């Protein structure tokens, strides 16, 4: 087990270097000059543009810029933003907790409501609660996120006035609730449907009949025997999902005025902030890798037959 984890962690190093190099090259290939763009449509000053570039090291050849970036990393230097002049590390450090809060809230909603809906539907497969769940989840899956966002905003804020339409204070969980629901809607629907089919199938498994025949209380049969065995596909999905949530919901963050990873990434791409994009994308990749490792380890907990040597 320990060796397995160590091997997986070591695999992350080449992935890390590969990702940073790729994103670096891609940013370089994009047309546009971030320093020149600071001047916009109005008068420009070539001498000053050249001086600012030299100061930021943007006048160096690409390979040298990349090496400078790589060697800066161990010192905790993720580069400097061109437009704002802020260290990229600081920008990420400010955005990450906001996204994490939103992602965790959305994740909680997904797990609690999604699994509950799935269980009810699975246990009553073919009857009216099942039909309702299938219908509602179908709605969530088919309506695009931004439409859902604007509908929620219109109904819950502008019409009913229950909550603020936009997030001003990202530490206020009340304000984050609506965006979290919007963000969770799609995964919630998938989780409900996965749980439903998994439970509907396992309900007829041999070990279930045995458990019931042994005379175990129904609560134990459902929670330990049925649910635990039905969770493997759901956990796989949730693992990928938390990665997606953390990677930043560009659309949801945009609609609800949340300045997390998603909106940082969007602005940085827009302004051609090379080092910011590289930093953020690398972070997202690492989160994905870490979560997928966690999910693989969880399999062993859920199903003792799975072992890692």
């Amino acid at each position, binding site marked *: 087990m320990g060796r397995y984890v160590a091997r997986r962690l070591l695999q992350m190093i080449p992935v890390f270097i590969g990702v940073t190099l790729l994103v670096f090259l891609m940013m370089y290939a*994009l*047309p*546009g*000059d*971030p320093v*020149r*763009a*600071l*001047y*916009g*449509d*109005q*008068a*420009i*000053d*070539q*001498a*000053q543009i*050249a*001086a*600012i570039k030299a*100061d930021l090291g943007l006048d160096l050849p690409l390979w040298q810029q990349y090496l400078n970036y790589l060697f800066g990393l161990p010192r905790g230097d993720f580069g400097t933003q061109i*437009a*704002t*002049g802020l260290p990229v590390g600081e920008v990420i450090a*400010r955005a990450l907790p906001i996204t994490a809060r939103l992602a965790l809230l959305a994740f909680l909603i997904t797990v609690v409501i999604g699994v509950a809906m799935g269980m009810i539907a699975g246990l009553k497969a073919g009857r009216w609660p099942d039909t309702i769940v299938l219908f509602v989840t179908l709605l969530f899956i088919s309506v695009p996120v931004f439409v859902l966002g604007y509908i929620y*905003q219109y109904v819950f*804020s*502008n019409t009913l006035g229950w909550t*603020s*339409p*936009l997030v*001003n*204070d990202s530490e206020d969980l009340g304000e984050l609730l609506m965006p979290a629901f919007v963000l969770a809607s799609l995964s919630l629907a998938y989780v409900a449907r996965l749980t439903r089919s998994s439970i509907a199938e396992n309900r007829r498994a041999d070990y279930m009949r045995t458990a019931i025949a042994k005379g175990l209380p129904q609560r134990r049969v459902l929670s330990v025997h049925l649910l635990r065995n039905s969770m493997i596909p759901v956990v796989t999905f949730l693992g990928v999902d938390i990665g997606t949530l953390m990677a930043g919901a560009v659309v949801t*963050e*945009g*609609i609800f*005025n949340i*300045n997390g990873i998603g*909106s940082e990434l969007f*602005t940085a791409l*827009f*302004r*051609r902030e090379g080092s910011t994009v590289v930093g953020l994308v690398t972070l997202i990749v690492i989160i994905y890798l870490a979560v997928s490792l966690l999910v693989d380890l969880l399999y062993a907990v859920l199903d003792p037959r799975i072992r890692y040597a």
Partner: protein
Amino acid sequence: MRGAKSAKWVASAIVVALAATACGGNDSGNDNGKGEVDPNGVFRLTNSEPQGNLQPANSRDTASGQVIKGLFSQLVDYTKDGSAEIVYVNAESVETEDNKTWTVKLKKGWKFHDGEEVTSKSYVDAWNWAANTENNQKNSYWFADIKGYKDVHPDKGKPKAKEMSGLKIVDDHTFTIELNEPVTYFNYKLAYSAWSPLPSKFYDDPEAYGDKPVGNGPYKFVSWERKKKITLERFDDYKGPDKAENGGVELVVYNTLENQYQAVYSEKADVVTMVPPRDLPKYRQDFGDRAIDAPMSGVQQIVPVFYNKQWKLGDKKNAELRKGLSMAIDRKTITDKVLHGSRVPATGFVGPNVLGFQEGVLGEVAEYNPEKAKKTIEDAGGVPGNKIHIQYNADGGHKEWVEAVCNNIRQNTGVECIPDAKVDFQTDLNTRDADKVKSMYRGAWVLDYPVNVNFMRELYETGADSNTGRFSSKKVDELFKKGDSAKDLDGTVKAYQEAEKQLVEEMPAIPLWYYATNAAHSKKVKNVEFDLANFLLMHKVKVMN
């Protein structure tokens, strides 16, 4: 926490009760607002996150510009109604005999927010610092008129000096500015925020100062919560004519124009300075008499690129083609229907409300006349290739009107017109700078200083940096020179007016429409006014309780 929360409830209940009694008890003075004006009231202005720190000579984006305008006062300002008369703010007088050497006398008793006196040194040192290439100030080119600028800001290499020889301190409240050449309108340039004075503390750590600026303006800095808000508070010792009529401003960050609009619509914030394209059709309905339409001074145009073989310099017939295209565009219908009245049809190259603005200088060239358009183009031999492209950036809300303009051209002249969308502004600018535009591009200019010169010299002088259409005309350059060497402001303005008439002959661009301010405010504030570059005049806003 629980205690604090209920205290808040009690407090807001009291506020509501007070407001209610105020409404009932007082009926004097206020015509459009409810309640009384609270001279200490604070309002919330929607803004975006400033790009860069708050050093005045480094601010180019509107978000930081708005903050800088609150924190700093300039030597002079000017009236915004088109008369463009100089108003002295921090200066007692700015005078010149020969337009080459200008003498500035400062008002006495002015203080920075930290108590330091504003002296000649505060200005001279600040300008020397800002002009220096090594300090990477984006507005450094503003000081290019001053003698010795090239020493601190060479075209290449390191600066040779730290000070511009043209700036001389006479005493604490007098200094002189010597220019390279006479500039008759130099005093107007001084109204721009790049010319702000700086306290001596600035030089200890300019970076740190940029996070916590100290100015001489009507508001003092309180705090900057990144990506959340910037808080300004009225500076009570302020001596200028534009003293704040409210207690302070919170500039709250909303990441899109749509969100800014939504915030004001739901009364979470008080002023939105720009209505997003999405809401233009309905903002007058949404806000009623709280919707604001005000004039701006900016012009949007389509610019032919003269490195393309289609367009020829100094060729009369070729210029006729551009006149023909211009007449094929139905400016009135497009500004009304496509742009929902947010723009005003242009009749010249210079934006309105500046000195030397000539209403209708384009004459029939700016009038919609499909028959004449077609005939003019046919008489001039037709557009080479019978096809034009209009390049624009797809992220700026231009798509609809570019398509409308192209439809006009296609239907009325038979010339194939293709909208050429670039993904974003960066790509668009890049193509323009690299001389790779196919045929024409969307261009725009908003005033820097209120003289017609500003709309022409930067855009149409041979070799000017912003002249990305690469237009060049001897006649126009000569008229510009004549204006620059004129004895007085009047002479300059007149020569440039002549130059504008010459531009109509040569058509280096097809002016489309003037910009306008489309804004809205909440029920809590009134007296919401804007300057000619769409900045809110924060000091004038009155807050109701």
